[in-house]
């Protein structure tokens, strides 16, 4: 992979921006649904995680994810995914990406906690999810998302 090709004529670009694409830990997760051995599963607290020691490496989950968030790990020969830093959040810590974000752009919290920071953010801002028509009920919300983002 050599990266994305350079834009030949920058003047044709209306605007440019970055959109982080993380696993949405969907409520109705297609990757969890299709895993033939249950190696991708939902934890009791709602995170969709994977047991790499059980994954057979069929890549069906990669095909099923509408958001391009599953990938094949060439080293372990298994499918990989964001675990929402499960080892951290179960100890009361934030996921590493939310922890280190210098501008605090990532808000992490428990969706069931009505008094929490996340619920407060969602209540006070216009947020949306990617590809809502897929019926996956993502738990990753974007604030001020551009229409170009798929």
């Amino acid at each position, binding site marked *: *992979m050599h990266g*994305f*090709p350079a834009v030949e004529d920058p003047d044709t670009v209306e605007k440019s921006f970055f959109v982080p*694409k993380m696993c949405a830990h969907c409520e109705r997760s*297609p990757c*969890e*649904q*299709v*895993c*033939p*051995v*249950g190696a991708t599963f939902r934890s009791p607290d709602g995170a969709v995680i994977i047991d790499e020691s*059980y*994954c*057979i*490496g*069929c*890549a*069906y989950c*990669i*095909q*099923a*994810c*509408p*958001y*391009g*968030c*599953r*990938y*094949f790990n060439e080293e*372990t*020969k*298994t*499918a990989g995914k964001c675990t929402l830093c499960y080892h951290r959040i179960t100890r009361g810590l934030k996921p590493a990406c939310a922890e280190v974000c210098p501008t605090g752009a990532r808000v992490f919290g428990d969706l069931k906690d009505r008094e929490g920071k996340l619920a407060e953010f969602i209540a006070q801002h216009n947020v949306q999810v990617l590809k809502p028509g*897929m*019926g996956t009920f993502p738990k990753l919300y974007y604030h001020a998302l551009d229409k170009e983002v*798929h």
Partner: protein
Amino acid sequence: MEGYIYPNEHRLVWSVLITLYPYITGLVAGAFILASGLTVFKVTALRPTYRLALLTSLAFLLVATLPLLAHLGHPERSFQMFLTPHSTSAMALFGFVYAWYLMVVLCLEIWFEYRADMVKMGQQSKGIMRLVYRALTMFDETLTPGSVKLDHKIAYIITVIGIPSAFLLHGYVGFIFGSIKANPYWDSVLMPVVFLFSAIVSGIALVMVLYMLTSKLRWTQPDMACLDAMARALLLALIVDFGLEGLDVVHRIYVAEESIDILSLMVTGKLFLTLVICQVLLGGLVPMLTLASTVMFSIPDRVRKVMYAVTGLLVLQGIFFMRWNVVIGGQLFSKSLLGFTTYKLEMAGREGGWMAVFLMCLPFGILLVLTKLLPPWGGAADVAGHGEGAPLSDGEPSLA
């Protein structure tokens, strides 16, 4: 890469081996459905190919899992699909569907179909072959008219069960793709039905080509009535298959969902050769017109045979490219619907082109062994006193 794709899409995760998987299972199901044409649908003209179709189906079924195993990151863990199948996964059922079809349908049907012949061949063989045939008959040499009749009755029942099983086997393979809503190219309720009819098409074409090839190798003339019957069945299946795929295309164009633009670009660009030329034109329209001309016009046998052979080969490549277009084509565009990636077929390696060639050749080697062990064209029948092409055991193969 062109346009904007997700980071995990630069490399296709399902390679040419996954193309072989539906192709081979389609040949299995199609050959079996053709064989059932004689026993269940009473198309007696198909008698000369009945056993060849069964053995072809078995030879390909024995190989059907190998492309999948070669593709898996951890093939040694594949048994987990049997031990802890995930009930919501379409793929989890594959092992069970496969085992059902192999053990309950094909092996049992072939065993009952050949049991009387295996007893006779065991009695007339010497040395290791005698032991092999005796072991295959489980050291039971009962050959009374009642037992032979019972064999045929059971084989008939298994064929009746086998038809929906063959439908299940390949319709299910189509469902594995058709149920992926994340991929607009695959996401279609028609996918299982299209897969099923394309399977029938490919199975008939394969047996037709094999029948002509084996006749030539054995210096015998193929039965023209049989070839004509297969050609008509192929034409019918082609028309239905073509109609269903056409319906899918028309529906996609008419409803013009969000993905229509990128799919149109793909079909007219990256897939033009494999889809428009190889699949639709050479694998669909040309064979249909050729077969239709053999029905409409009086064409000499010799020319008709050449037409059937060419048509069969064209159909086989057309269905292969149909699988290619589904599996590879379905991964060439980004799920962002804003870009394309490229598939470069590497020849070496576990998922390479040479492995694909080997896996496609392997069923023919297995079929050769099977036809030596269980001659489908009257080799042992000559011993038993039957004529060329006649069923080995009795006058009516597998009829109740």
